[in-house]
């Protein structure tokens, strides 16, 4: 059986031949290629980027004695959408949460192995965990706007704490709302409570909130599972626009969704990476029997 580990191919490992000397370079402030500050708000799609490459090397994750992710090696290329599919409990979410180091927030949870962002090991002891989360944003399953904050305050919540000036704050908040395709709908009620929006709007608000801090990677953990089909479609359109700007990793239970939004799809089972490949190949002509059984609905 052919389990493909793209990282073992020489083309991928040589993508970052020289890791940067200073592990903090590129953190804290937007790098030159990801910056949208100062540019017209509607053109983030024009960027061509070299940053935002994520690479997992022999990643293991545990909850206490439960070995949830087993030796996963995998690369997520910049400016691409990668979907992670697999049955419930196969370690999809856990693996994704290792990328922004949210996994370790859970009591008893730990991980081993490497997660590289543009060649830097995010688990290096010199790495600032707060900076990691600014570079790797996350959108959750259920929309979770801050209930005490207005629409605009929600969007700028991550920025406000970094000493960004008031004027710039509004600009970047507006930019993020435009980027998340929400500006037209909320421009008249920026001061209204964020929880007053519809479910789909709330989820796009959460995407805007994640985009506002200018991440290089955006992790989406089943972002549409609490939404109706129309709101889901809006989010999927948004993902297609955003992939120019951020590397997107989306966990989904919906195989049609993976087929619609992702160029690359990863199939996981029991914590292990079974197969990774171009989405159409994985769905039509997978190399692994288990992948075929899963995508044709024989289990899971």
């Amino acid at each position, binding site marked *: 059986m052919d389990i493909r580990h793209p990282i073992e191919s020489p083309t991928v490992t040589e993508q970052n031949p020289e890791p940067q000397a200073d592990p903090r370079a590129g953190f804290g402030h937007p790098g030159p290629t990801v910056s949208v500050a100062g540019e017209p708000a509607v053109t983030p799609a024009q960027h061509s980027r070299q940053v935002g490459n994520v690479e997992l090397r022999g990643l293991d994750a545990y909850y206490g004695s439960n070995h949830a992710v087993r030796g996963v090696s995998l690369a997520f290329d910049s400016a691409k959408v990668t979907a992670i599919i697999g049955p419930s409990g196969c370690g999809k979410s856990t693996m994704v949460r290792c990328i922004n180091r949210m996994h370790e927030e859970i009591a008893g949870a730990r991980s081993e192995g490497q997660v590289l962002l543009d060649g830097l090991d995010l688990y290096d002891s010199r790495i600032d965990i707060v900076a990691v989360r600014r570079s790797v944003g996350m959108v959750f399953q259920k929309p979770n706007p801050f*209930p005490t904050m207005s629409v605009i305050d929600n969007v700028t919540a*991550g920025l406000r704490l970094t000493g960004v000036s008031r004027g710039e704050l509004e600009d970047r908040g507006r930019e993020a709302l435009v980027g998340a395709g929400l500006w037209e709908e909320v421009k008249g009620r920026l001061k209204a409570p964020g929880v007053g929006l519809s479910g789909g709007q709330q989820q796009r608000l959460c995407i805007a909130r994640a985009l506002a801090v200018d991440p290089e990677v955006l992790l989406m953990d089943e972002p549409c599972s609490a939404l109706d089909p129309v709101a889901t479609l809006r989010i999927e359109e948004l993902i297609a626009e955003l992939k120019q700007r951020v590397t997107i990793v989306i966990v989904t239970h919906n195989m049609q969704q993976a087929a619609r939004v992702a160029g690359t799809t990863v199939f996981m089972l029991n914590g292990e990476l079974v197969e990774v490949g171009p989405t159409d190949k994985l769905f039509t002509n997978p190399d692994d029997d288990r992948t075929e059984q899963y995508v044709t609905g024989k289990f899971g």
Partner: protein
Amino acid sequence: MNPSADHALLLDRGNLKRRRRVSALVGAASTVAALLAVAVLLIVVGSVLLKGLGALSIHFLTTPTALFGESGGGISNAIVGSAIMVGLAALMAIPVGLLVAIYTTEFAPARIAHPIRFVLDVLNGVPTIITGIFVYGLLVAGNQQSGFAASVALAIVMLPIVARTAQEVLSLVPATLKEAAHALGIAPWRATVRVTLPTAAGGLLTGALLAVARVAGETAPLILLSSIFAPGVLTEPGEALASIPIFIFQASESPSPEAHTQAWAAALILIAFVLVLNIVARAFYARSRKRMGA
């Protein structure tokens, strides 16, 4: 129509009547118990109203207690003294209680948080006269009674109430909000200040108000720590201050019938204050729960 053999199992096999009687009996007993609890409150409030309302007047509220042997007088000194002592106690206990709750719910690992919770429950159960004696030994023995000593004792009584209610409220804040804040790269203490505390604000206020209501009527420590005071309205916490509970205690011990009516009137003021605080606290709590989606 004859029931089939299968359905015969559904029929009464002798003790159905007895079970129905027991059920009715238990239902009735618990209803009566619930009514009794309500009745106790109504009787207490009603009798205080009946006996106290007559002596209640603007004069009573704005005049200090009469000197021994004189008649008239009121409780303005007791109201001011109670406000100062309860206020000082709140200033000490509420910030510390909130910090304890924040530490145990947001930062401490479970093996530290659980013992702290247990200690707070034990502290909450310590008889207040013992708290009073402790503070007496600490601040009054070899010194003199003072409003400050009384407020320290009241703060010790308040602390576990504030901390435990705040813990309950903070643990109701959805974990998804804290996750969202962490995932945005907001440092944990900032996430606490900017996200968790504002979300829980109503419930935290509720706990603080209930704690104030609880100690406003606290008497035992005050007898030891602030019961021998000069006449007139005093505001200096360094000396012993009058208070409503002590006024009620001393006036009800007095042989004069007028003093007894005054005790009832002071009791009415105290009970009204506590009731209002409880009602306001409930309103804040209801709003807070709505916000947290509970």
